[in-house]
């Protein structure tokens, strides 16, 4: 498979300014002051952020925070009250067909035509985009691992199979941007893992930008390069998750599970931050952690496990959203 190249239009002055800030890559998605008001209530309040190409971008927020509404506006299912959303520079408001042809999406559950077979469903969506050969349908079916069941009616599918079919219809036309709303809902752990690996594969090997919403913080941590955190329709923070500068250099709290915490404290000579259940917590970088382990072992302390207890995304999330109140 070959990733369809980017916007393919002359860069404007505004682009080049942003390109400098972004290190040369034009954002695949740009939200500018996006606001949605329904009946005097502000559901989405002035959202502005960019999604750089080739990233798995998480959109994180408690239930009711406006994730799905934002996604619906991104794909044109809902209108913005004000603001602008650009997909590879195309406005979803004024150049809808141009903009949406670059998107593949599952909005909430992958609800397909249950009375049709999986194949007929894919045929249906393939017909709506010019230039998708039958071969491409077979290829996608193979890719999501539905080959043996694709000619069965969708009503006989398990949730996991429907999810795969949902992914298949979303990637049929090789979109530059894949939007998945709560994709792990209802999947079993194996399914979640598979989806996660697949999304990372798409981003890494095909350059597809993946935009995933979730309220599952642990999921986001494993899947995403960057997350935007939203609460009550407001953007709270955008932060990188993995591969950020200083991984391993930055000091983090490391828990050493040991048999005798007292002995460990003595052996480490004041380096211990605090004692924890069944172990000691030390502030250390990657290399230091290895050294500390050696010292403990040398002192005859048995080490059962070593793990970082830096604030997880969950802690950070609860911190910034103040305990995850319903927006």
């Amino acid at each position: 498979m070959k990733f369809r190249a980017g916007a393919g239009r002359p860069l404007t002055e505004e682009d080049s300014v942003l390109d400098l800030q972004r290190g040369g890559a034009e954002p695949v998605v740009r939200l500018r002051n996006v606001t949605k008001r329904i009946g005097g209530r502000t559901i989405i309040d002035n959202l502005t952020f960019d999604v750089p190409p080739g990233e798995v971008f998480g959109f994180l927020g408690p239930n009711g925070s406006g994730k799905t509404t934002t996604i619906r506006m991104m794909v044109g299912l809902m209108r913005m009250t004000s603001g602008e959303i650009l997909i590879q520079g195309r406005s979803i408001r004024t150049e809808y067909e141009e903009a949406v042809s670059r998107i593949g999406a599952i909005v909430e559950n992958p609800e397909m035509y249950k009375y049709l077979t999986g194949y007929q469903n894919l045929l249906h969506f393939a017909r709506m985009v010019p230039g998708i050969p039958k071969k491409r349908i077979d290829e996608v079916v193979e890719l999501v691992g539905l080959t043996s069941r694709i000619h069965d009616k969708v009503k006989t599918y398990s949730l996991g199979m429907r999810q795969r079919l949902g992914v298949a219809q979303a990637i049929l036309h090789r979109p530059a941007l894949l939007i998945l709303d709560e994709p792990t809902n209802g999947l079993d752990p194996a399914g979640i893992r598979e989806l996660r690996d697949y999304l990372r594969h798409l981003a890494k090997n095909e350059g597809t930008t993946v935009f995933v919403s979730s309220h599952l913080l642990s999921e986001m941590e494993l899947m995403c390069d960057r997350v935007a955190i939203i609460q009550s329709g407001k953007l709270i923070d955008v932060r990188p998750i993995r591969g950020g500068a200083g991984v391993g250099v930055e000091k983090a709290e490391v828990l050493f599970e040991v048999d005798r915490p007292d002995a460990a404290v003595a052996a480490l000579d004041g380096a211990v931050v605090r004692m924890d259940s069944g172990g000691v917590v030390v502030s250390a970088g990657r290399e230091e952690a290895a050294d500390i382990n050696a010292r403990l072992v040398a002192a005859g302390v048995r080490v059962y496990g070593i793990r970082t207890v830096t604030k997880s995304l969950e802690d950070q999330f609860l911190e910034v959203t103040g305990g995850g109140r319903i927006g």
Partner: protein
Amino acid sequence: MADFLRLIQNENMKIYRRVRTWVMLAIVFFIPLALALGGLALDSSPNMWTYVQIDISAMGWLITTFAVVIAADIVAGEFSGGTIKLLLIRPWSRSKILLAKYIALLLFLLLFLTAFYLFSLLVNGVLFGFGGGTEVLPADGDERSPLAYITAYYGFRLIEMIVTVTMAFMISSVFRSSALAIGLSIAMMFGGNIMSAILALVDKPWVDYILFMNYGLASYLNGGTPIAGRPLAFSLAVLAGYWAIFVALSWYVFHRRDVAD
């Protein structure tokens, strides 16, 4: 254009890949057969054209009902099934997606009505012998051929069916409820007959502008009009007016609506 035909192809697939459509078609074939067999058993001198006439005038409502069921489902079903979210996020304007649905619906109506007519001709012709039929004409010495007369009758019924089915389509699009669309359309179809009989007694000009008062176009073939004292063109104009309103409402709401659930 070729691409747009693929949208209609999609809508057709969603209609004809369902068992219910084939059950309906089976019923459409069964009815002329059942009525003809009844005639064969009970009627002392059955005639092909009499039974062709009975088929459409007695059972035409069933074709309308089937088309109303399709109309009710064709938009509302996408909402209740959640598939509307996948359908709309394609490089097509909402208006064109809705147009493909409306065309597929009219094709369904036309197909079913034609199938009904042809099968009615075939069954009654085979059972009662082709030919004859001056009995169905309104007056002795009428020069028209029975085929021309019945075909004109079908034509007038088709116009009414299109209006009823478009109303169901509008309710389906505006209220996203297939139950409401089916209920209201069928209530109007049957209740309209009774209501028009009652309202005909009301001596006010506005009564003539009520939709169902103008049904019964085929009475023109027998020298009448749906509303006494009003020409056929009046009823046709009123029906056209309602049709235009139904279409405008369907498109306006479908185009504007936020898909939010």
